């Protein structure tokens, strides 16, 4: 008995986390057996079992695989482009006040505008399909990354800059040796935000501006009252978000090995 208890203590967090998910699914599964749902809700209700079955069925369908591939491509290209643009622009804006003064109003205005506003224009310009969604993903992910990178650069330790300068470093070396490593925690935090925005971009773009992708599949299924598929798509998106967030966490751990470990306090 004691042994089980100590094993539980060691793994308390995952046990509680997973346990609660299982409990949640069980309750959900049994709701229709216990409660009589109002007619409107009952018609479009589904249970974890049905969703699971749908997911299994979908995973063998080549059509679904195609839609998944489209969504993943949009996500990767859009996010990749935003990283490629946000990092250099953020670094440069942080280092040169003139450029910052030029770009700042633009960045602030764009960032404060909801992404959805651009969709009609983007669809007109890039057509109904994958590229409109890529652009929406790009716009969504760009600004959190850009703003965080900028903040990271602004938060530079003056002493470290002086140290590296005193050894005759040029601006490029200064970026590489001090500015970039110093900004990394900010950039990682920005990346985490950007991933959320990018997934949102995929969903929004496919809901309204595409005839391909998992988001389109969900919108189409909802139009035909096929609730299982809607939920299955939702779970797919949740799973992708989770995996990506964990990947960033891993990256962060790798890059911050030099940091003091968190000291446990009371």
């Amino acid at each position: 008995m004691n042994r089980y208890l100590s094993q539980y203590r060691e793994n308390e967090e995952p046990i509680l986390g997973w346990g609660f998910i299982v409990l949640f699914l069980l309750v959900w599964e049994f709701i229709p057996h216990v409660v009589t749902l109002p007619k409107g809700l009952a018609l479009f209700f589904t249970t974890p079992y049905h969703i699971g079955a749908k997911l299994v069925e979908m995973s063998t369908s080549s059509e679904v695989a195609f839609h998944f591939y489209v969504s993943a491509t949009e996500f990767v290209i859009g996010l990749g482009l935003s990283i490629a643009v946000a990092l250099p622009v953020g670094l440069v804006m942080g280092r040169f006040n003139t450029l910052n003064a030029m770009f700042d109003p633009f960045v602030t205005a764009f960032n404060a505008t909801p992404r959805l506003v651009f969709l009609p224009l983007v669809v007109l310009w890039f057509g109904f399909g994958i590229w409109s969604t890529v652009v929406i993903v790009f716009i969504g992910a760009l600004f959190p990354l850009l703003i965080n990178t900028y903040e990271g650069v602004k938060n530079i330790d003056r002493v470290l800059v002086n140290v590296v300068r005193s050894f005759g470093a040029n601006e490029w070396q200064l970026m590489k040796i001090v500015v970039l490593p110093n900004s990394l925690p900010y950039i990682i935090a920005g990346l985490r935000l950007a991933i959320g925005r990018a997934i949102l971009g995929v969903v929004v773009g496919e809901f309204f501006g595409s005839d391909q992708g998992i988001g389109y599949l969900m919108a189409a299924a909802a139009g035909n009252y096929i609730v299982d598929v809607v939920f299955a798509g939702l779970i797919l998106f949740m799973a992708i978000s989770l995996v990506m967030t964990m990947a960033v966490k891993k990256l962060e751990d790798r890059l911050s090995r030099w940091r003091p470990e968190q000291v446990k306090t009371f």
Partner: protein
Amino acid sequence: MEPYIRSTDITLTFTPKNRDAVTALKDFRIELNSGEFVSIVGPSGCGKSTFLNVLLGLLKPDKGEMEIGGKKITGPGVERAMVFQEFGLLPWRTVLANVELGPELKGESVASRRPRAQELINLVGLTGFEGHFPHELSGGMKQRVGLARALATDPEVLLMDEPFAALDAQTRDLMQAELLQIWDKHKKTVLFVTHSIEEAAYLSDRVIVMTKRPGRTKRIIKINLPRPRGYEMRLSPEFNDIKLDIWNNLKDELNARE
């Protein structure tokens, strides 16, 4: 003999945004001989650190020029290196990588800079800590890294900006003694800024007392005590006389705060 480092009257004024202009240095003049150990003491904010940064080549004076070995200073150079008060170690680099910073920026290959870095790490007594990160070191150890890093480019001049101010008293005594040994062995010219009269008197050939802001030279005191200097010397009456002399010059500046 021509002094190794000399300046014309240096004046430097800071004009921060939305603040009154501050004249940190006014007609400050200095001459240093090669291999000499000189300390600067003065009240807080008298421009001691500012002057070091001018000499290091990070700040441009409004008026006046500095010369080193007959060459005008226009920016940082390999013949000068600074030991910083707050250590200034790159926290994401190991001890070894921190020490190698200067040679690396000079474009030296790993093969040529590594043995020298290792030698300096041994010299400052950090053998075995090459792979440690700064946060894993004590204050004294961090400043040993700072010293090794400054020596890594084999500079002629060591600039030290209150390098031991953040250390506890015993570590400080120890580091002072070790600095003297290293100085004696490597024959560097040292310009040492400090708040501690005792530290200045113990280490230096000459002590420059600065006025309050805007900083100028008030007096230069020659320390005619024999070397090598041991800890016992710090308890001798001659040493106390020197300390008193420095103090008497300094105290008016401290009282005359605006």
